[in-house]
């Protein structure tokens, strides 16, 4: 499954230019990679969100594949029906080609409102890939917190203020929730690691049953970073172990990337405006009520670091890799 940029550059693109995504948006890069990795024709069901409104505003479309949007919380349920139609019509000999199915939701449409539809579709065993393009908040509606928003992030519904340091709780482990459905293939990745991402798409589409990718997709509007830094930020997320690249294939956990040097969480936090208040003078600790007139909210930084460390250790145990290094071949840099 070796992927070369030279070969890829010759491939006809399915997600094409002319869409209205922001410059520096992770979603465009992510979906370009996803569709380049697909070998069979695909049918996509895309939930309401930035990706939808920016790529399919009538009478335009950026998609050269069959594509449907029906609502916000139901892209997994919609693809269930499409896949069922495929099974039925294929059995009747009315459809002969091999077709792959991809359902897409943002983190809001997946972690929160669409979780039930996703869970139902995974349990029923439809053969499809679900992609959560996770930019860690409801970015399309103006940066409100979601179940994927990290602790400490300032969003429009969890703003940092004199009595708040932003979102007061940790994000939920959606990849873990999906893993509990015992589906054949699931993984986490980022568009910064293109080879890893595309390899995972290939594996996911080849799986005999449902598959799932949780892709950390930078959003500079919500993360408040420099546009040009988006892909780099995705890389830092993996380097700090805040967003580990791993996969679960038939129940087997495997780390795909272990940073040479695990970077401190501050490297992930500092470039992002949504965490600015943590480092500001006069910052407030909601926990103790004390005011940090002299510097950053070290207490919160420690808490965030401790959580990353704890989750990383848990993952290492699940992957049971000991000293064995992951196959770095798969990770595009």
């Amino acid at each position: 499954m070796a992927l070369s940029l030279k070969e890829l550059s010759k491939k006809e693109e399915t997600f094409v230019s002319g869409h209205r995504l922001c410059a520096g948006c992770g979603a465009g890069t992510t979906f370009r990679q996803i569709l380049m990795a697909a070998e069979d024709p695909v049918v996509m069901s895309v939930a309401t969100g930035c990706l939808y409104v920016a790529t399919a505003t009538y009478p335009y479309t950026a998609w050269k594949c069959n594509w449907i949007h029906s609502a916000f919380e139901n892209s997994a349920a919609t693809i269930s029906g499409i896949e069922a139609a495929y099974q039925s019509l294929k059995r009747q000999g009315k459809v002969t080609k091999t077709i792959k199915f991809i359902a897409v939701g943002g983190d809001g449409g997946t972690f929160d409102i669409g979780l039930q539809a996703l869970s139902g579709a995974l349990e029923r065993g439809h053969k499809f890939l679900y992609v959560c393009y996770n930019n860690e908040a409801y970015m399309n509606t103006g940066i409100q917190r979601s179940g994927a928003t990290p602790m400490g992030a300032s969003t429009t519904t969890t703003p940092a203020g004199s009595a708040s340091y932003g979102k007061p709780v940790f994000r939920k482990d959606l990849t873990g929730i999906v893993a509990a459905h015992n589906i054949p293939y699931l993984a986490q990745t980022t568009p910064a690691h293109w080879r890893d991402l595309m390899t995972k798409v290939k594996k996911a589409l080849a799986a005999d049953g449902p598959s799932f990718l949780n892709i950390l997709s930078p959003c500079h509007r919500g993360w408040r970073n420099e546009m040009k830094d988006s892909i780099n930020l995705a890389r830092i997320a993996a380097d700090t172990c805040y967003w580990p690249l791993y996969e679960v294939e038939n129940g087997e956990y495997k780390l795909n990337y272990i940073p040479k040097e695990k970077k401190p969480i501050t490297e992930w936090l500092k470039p992002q405006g949504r965490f600015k208040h943590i480092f500001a003078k006069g910052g407030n600790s909601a926990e103790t009520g004390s005011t940090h007139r002299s510097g950053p909210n070290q207490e919160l930084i420690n808490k965030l670091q401790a959580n990353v460390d704890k989750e990383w250790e848990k993952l290492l145990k699940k992957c049971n890799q000991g000293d064995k290094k992951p196959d770095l071949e798969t990770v595009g840099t």
Partner: protein
Amino acid sequence: MTGNNAVSEAMRQINPDVVAAYPITPQTEAVEEFAEFVANGLVKTQYVPVESEHSSMSACIGSSAAGARTMTATSSAGFALMWEMLPIAAGLRTPVIMYVANRSLSAPLNIHCGHDDTMGGRDSGWIQIYSENAQEMYDNLIQAVRIGEDMDIRLPVMVSMDGFITTHSVERVDLLDDEAVRKFVGEFKAINSLLDVDNPVTIGACALQDYYTEHKRQHSEAIINSKAKILEVAEEFAKMSGRKYGLFESYKLDDAEYALVIINSAAGVAKMVVNELRAKGVKVGLLKPRIFRPFPAEEIKNALKHLKAIAVMDRVDAFGAGGTPTFTEVRSAMYGLPKQPLMINYIYGIGGRDIRLEDINKVFQKLFDVAKAGKVDKVFDYLTVRE
């Protein structure tokens, strides 16, 4: 057989490509029976046992857009949970066929009959057909396939009957031959199928100020035009079955002076009262709407305009509105006549409360009083209620 049996038999004969459904009382029996047909290989259907009604309608939309003949069934709270997806099914012009067992909505929770569910979805852009008994339900469901899938219409159709009263009562139903139904419904013709990978299509693009209105206008035209198609299909169905349907049923209306307008099973009870009063020489009649969307306003006006007084009865409240759904439609249809019949509005039978002959009689007596007085003192009232 029961009304639910009649539905599952019709579904077996229609033999859809995909059924996605979730169980809910009193619809359950129909999907259970259909699942048995699937399990025994009697149909070609791919059955999707979804985790909720929201997902059943979502899956139906996907399936229909993928070019498969698609059916589902629901009731009450399930219908309400689907609600967001109903205008989407209609707006995307997916001709999904849905059986609804009419049941009241919570709270308080009630599993029995009321028209809250389908009346709540009357403006979701679906074609709506109502059925008095199991025979009508069976016949309407088969016709619905042809109506919704017509190339000039392409709209979802819901066909309903009264929960428990009709769904669970045993009646005689004349079934058509499998082959006759198969021929009648024909093959589903896909347009812009999601599975036609050589001709990719984007379905459900967002349309803002610049195009939304045009989309809605086209949808509106299609549902208005469906009236003619409904009659055309009914005529063809009559040739095959000997059973005639129109936009509504007129019962002893031609020379009537007083009439009721009443939907579904209670029309049966009302017909008995009409017969009794007719035997006494009183000129009474009944109009039973079959198609509620599109609402055949002009035709109903013509059928009712000669009357002295009309009572429109609904199995649902409209809480603070100017009247219940059928009443506001009928009264609006009658507006502008040089001589308007006097009209009153009753709510009856909600939550499955029995409607008896004497209750209907009371309504007619009220109509006689209203006509005698030449005016309406109370437009809106509950029938059979503990005050």
